[in-house]
């Protein structure tokens, strides 16, 4: 397999952080640690969540680069993605 083939197959890379219990669904990420994940070109937030084996109903908030993102937002190379269940405090 050439380098080009590998790139085509893996698509792009995003930086994912999982918090507040979501990390248990994708233990490789660990709590709050930056984890590089390969997703196919055109993948959305929902696709990423599915790829990480996180049940969709567990994710309440998705930030992409510090901004609230809808599940259908298409991910870009290098995006910083953070996923949270419902939380509050103050």
């Amino acid at each position, binding site marked *: 397999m050439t380098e080009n083939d590998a790139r085509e197959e893996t698509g792009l890379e995003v930086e994912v952080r999982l918090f507040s219990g979501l990390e248990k669904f994708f233990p490789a990420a660990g709590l709050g640690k930056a984890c590089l994940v390969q997703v196919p070109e055109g993948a959305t937030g929902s696709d990423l969540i599915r790829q990480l084996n996180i049940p969709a109903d567990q994710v*309440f908030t998705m930030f992409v680069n510090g901004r609230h993102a809808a599940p259908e937002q298409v991910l870009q190379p290098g995006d910083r993605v953070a996923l*949270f269940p*419902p939380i*509050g*405090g*103050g």
Partner: protein
Amino acid sequence: MARLLRVDMTKKEVNFADVPEKYSLLGGRALTSQIVADEVPPACDPLGKFNKLVFAPGLLTGTNAPSSGRLSVGGKSPLTGGIKEANAGGITSQKLANLGIKAVIVEGKPADGGWSLLKITPDGAELLDAGDLAGKGTYEVTAICRERYGNKVGVITIGPAGEMCLSAAGVTNNDPDGNSSRYAGRGGLGAVMGSKRLKAIVVDSPKTFDAPVKDRERFRAAAKKFSDILLKHPVTGNGLPNFGTSILINVINEAGALPTRNFAFGRFGKAQEVSGEKLAETAVARGGKATHACHPGCVMRCSNVYPLPDGKVCAPIEYESDWALGPNLEIGDLDVVGRLNYICNDVGLDTIETGVTLGVLMEAGVIPFGDGEAAIKALEEVGRGTALGRIIGSGAAVAGKVFGVTRVPAVKGQGLPAYDPRACKGVGVTYATSPMGADHTSGYAVATNILKSGGYVDPLKPDGQVDLSRNLQIATAALDSTGLCLFVAFAVLDDPEALPAVVEMINAQYGTQLTLADVTELGKQILKTEREFNRLAGFTKEHDRLPEFFATEELPPHNTVFDIKGEELDQVYNF
């Protein structure tokens, strides 16, 4: 029949009086603010004999309404120069309500300067000499009082900072385990208590949930319904009990709104180290607790018990304290945060104001950013009453003046809490316009800006923030009058059946026919009363502004400024 307890510190006399009709349906913040507005001259010296210190349980406090044991403490603030209501958990409020006390009003000032303790029991109230307690930290005072008067008593007290009348001093009371850590922290009301030479109030009541209720069956049904709503909501029923309030560290950090290095950045590289998840894990590993109730009958149990390496216990470390003494100072070590928090609790200081003040001192170069040991050393000077210690205890605005710092995050003299107003603009509107000074709790737009509770308003844009803050400030003023913990708001904002259940509880308890519209009206009335007091104390709309660096310095990572204009901020009060 509920009564008012008046404590005249000039004559050292106590008197019970009937509750005037106009106060009969007021409680908590509504009552403290109304009494202060009625009885305290707005232009008076906050530390003089004309100021008063008012303690009031909420309307529902002392019943079995869930999470309803909050205590309101009011007076004229030595920190802001305006009206103040500071709100605490702990066990004392339920006891006051069960003794039939609607408010305790402490007035006057003794000529001799001697220290007193107010003891309240089912048999009445009396002032006792407290010379032996003066100079002691709050943990020791609370332990002594529990030994002397029984380990079930509630102890309201101040530390040495309050005795020295330092304007960041808070008023504390204890949780069910005797930790003197449940603070009515903000605005320097501890200094008002100190100015009256009242070291402690001991409240002894055998009952906790037996305040009079007119229609018990109807009340029980409404309380059960409200409790179910809280337990079913993912935040109040799951997030808060599991991780406590510090769970916010990560989400506010990811949103780029976690004030770091005295509000220079919106993200902190070591946020994970001081997060709620880390706190819960460490607390449990050391034999502490990740969930804990600050008062009996709370279903959210968002408190925690964090054992420190030196054998002491900080219970709890809350999000605001965690941020103020951690990321704000570039300190990424929970043990240091816990130690600083413990010292604040013991010496009697508001953790938010203290953290913001230490940030200003770091900005001035007095202490290096990130140097936990230096921060601990400096904070220990407060109890010794050194010049630096007194500056720290006097709050961020004073420290900024003393050291010539212009980047002082404060409004009306009160330090900003744990959300940068450039990346969470709704709460910036609240900071600017609340009669309390920079106070997140008085209109918690973070819920809607970042946590998506009660809808969503983009935190980075100016649009919609004034309306959001206004509505939240009105609703919160009303909620602060019920004795319910503010955190019920997460459920109230999302579940249309929650607020009707609250109104139903009040109606069942008092035999009233209040409607939802009456609740909104009450909130507006409270804000108007507080704002009028401030106007008479010398405040103008020009005081409803953020410090100018928020409009001129961009905040990374979003590189936004606070761009809501003065005339738009003035629209908060267009009701």
